[in-house]
């Protein structure tokens, strides 16, 4: 078997929760420094893909690579080492509720590096500044709004200078200005820091702003995958319907009839 030179590769992945098949012979390649955007219906398995790449979920079959490491075969120790090169922003932020903003962001540095207190404080301030959260350092997660939590989660994901960053709906719940700031941040990360990113989002504006390549997940497979401009022109009826947000088309066929019948 050839070792891939991609940043991330999923090969023939099957993922099933009890009876429900979520991913079915799913394959995906992500090149270094690329900004891939994954779109798909709610419940189609986008978050599941990110979890599989992180190795917090194991697929029923298939292989997943992060650079040269086969995530699906790694032992705990190696897997922990590999994960330090990835940053993940969870859909619901997943901040540690007992720690304030500062120590949430400082956690990976405290636990995984030998940096001194001062160095850690400096890095934390810098990352919080990037997401515009420097003034809320002492607050607890429960004292933040959803969008503020998202931004703290992004700062936490960036703190170890990851090579790959996984973003689960980063701009959901943000106002248009902050959303643009976050978009520009993601773009500048790949331009200046050579970070590869995989973003899951429903928001078309940010999707087309961020993405160098788009992928559409439908019924367990990638049904369309193209550069942003080509993707917009896609002839695929599912993609066309998804992009236009129309009720006419193969997605949820028949549910509108059910509504009008009532």
């Amino acid at each position, binding site marked *: 078997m050839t070792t891939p030179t991609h940043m991330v590769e999923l090969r023939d992945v099957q993922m099933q929760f009890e009876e429900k098949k979520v991913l079915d012979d799913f394959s995906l390649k992500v090149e270094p420094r690329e900004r891939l955007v994954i779109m798909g219906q709610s419940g189609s398995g986008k978050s599941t893909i990110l*979890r599989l790449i*992180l190795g*917090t979920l194991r697929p029923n079959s298939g292989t997943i690579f992060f650079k040269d490491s086969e995530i699906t075969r790694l032992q*705990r*120790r190696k897997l*922990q*080492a*590999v*994960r*330090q090169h*990835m940053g*993940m922003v*969870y859909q*619901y932020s*997943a*901040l*540690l*509720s007992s720690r304030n903003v500062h120590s949430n962001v400082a*956690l*990976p540095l*405290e*636990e*995984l590096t030998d940096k001194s207190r001062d160095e850690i404080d400096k890095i934390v301030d810098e990352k919080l500044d990037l997401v515009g959260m420097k003034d809320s350092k002492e607050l607890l997660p429960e004292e933040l709004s959803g969008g503020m939590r998202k931004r703290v989660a992004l700062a*936490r994901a960036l703190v*170890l200078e990851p090579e790959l960053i996984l973003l689960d709906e980063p701009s959901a719940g943000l106002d248009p200005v902050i959303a643009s700031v976050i978009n520009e941040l993601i773009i500048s990360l790949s331009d200046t820091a050579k970070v590869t990113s995989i973003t899951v989002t429903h928001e078309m504006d940010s999707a087309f702003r961020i993405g160098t390549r788009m992928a559409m997940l439908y019924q367990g497979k990638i049904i369309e995958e193209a550069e942003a401009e080509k993707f917009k022109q896609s002839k695929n009826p599912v993609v066309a319907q998804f992009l236009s947000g129309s009720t006419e088309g193969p997605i949820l066929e028949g549910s509108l009839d059910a509504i009008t019948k009532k």
Partner: protein
Amino acid sequence: MANAHAQPPVLVAQGIGHLSRNFLREVGGVFWFIVNTFQETFERIQKGRVPFRATSFFRHTQRAGVDSVPLAGLVSFFLGLTMALLTGYQLQRFGTERLIPGLVAIGFTRELGPLLTGIMLAARIGAAYTAELGTMQVSEEVEAIEAMGIGPLRFLVAPRMLALVLLMPCLSTVSNIAAIFASSLVCKAYFSIAFPYFLDLVKDSLLIRDIITGILKSFLFGLLISAIACYRGLTVKGGAAGVGTATTSSVVTAITAVIGFDTLYNVVYTTFYPI
């Protein structure tokens, strides 16, 4: 269901089989949980790093240990009082009241001290551990910790486990002292045994062996309670209701396990070291 028409004895047998399989699976689960926690912690130490912060450890010892002193002390005090009174009147009939100090001292150091403390801590600290870790599990915090490359077992479980294992013997000692003190009061008030004489009687009857047995038991109970509580917490499923169920189950399981292991320990001990 396939067994809808099965005979009652078959159903009973199936039920027993099902229960014992679940029981074995749980025992195996907790066992491997302890093994994995040790492994993860030692891997970390091998890399030349502290497995967890001292502040995190001391926060848990404060909560599990120092804050439990009043409860353990008070309950044991009352129990020591009752025990001395009840046995005292029985022994008085044979004119052997001077056996009371030894009875209470041996009874508590070997048996009741660790057992009572175990039951109280299972309810007080075990429940807190399960609820805390369970809530972190359902709000994806545990997964986020894992995703950062931090081992959740050594980061979350190891400090809690160590705190409880180290503090159980201390709390058992508090419990023993409270009970013996209470019985000395009873001895003085009802059976005219003065305090110095009381102490002599305790010293004469209490063996080092009894003390060591009690301490060993305490360590074991601390490990059991913390392992069961953390295991239940990290395996929570089903949101807030799941955390509730897991917490109840954690307390029930831990108390049963403590009493079960205590019995087992006593049987083994008295078989190999009679008297």
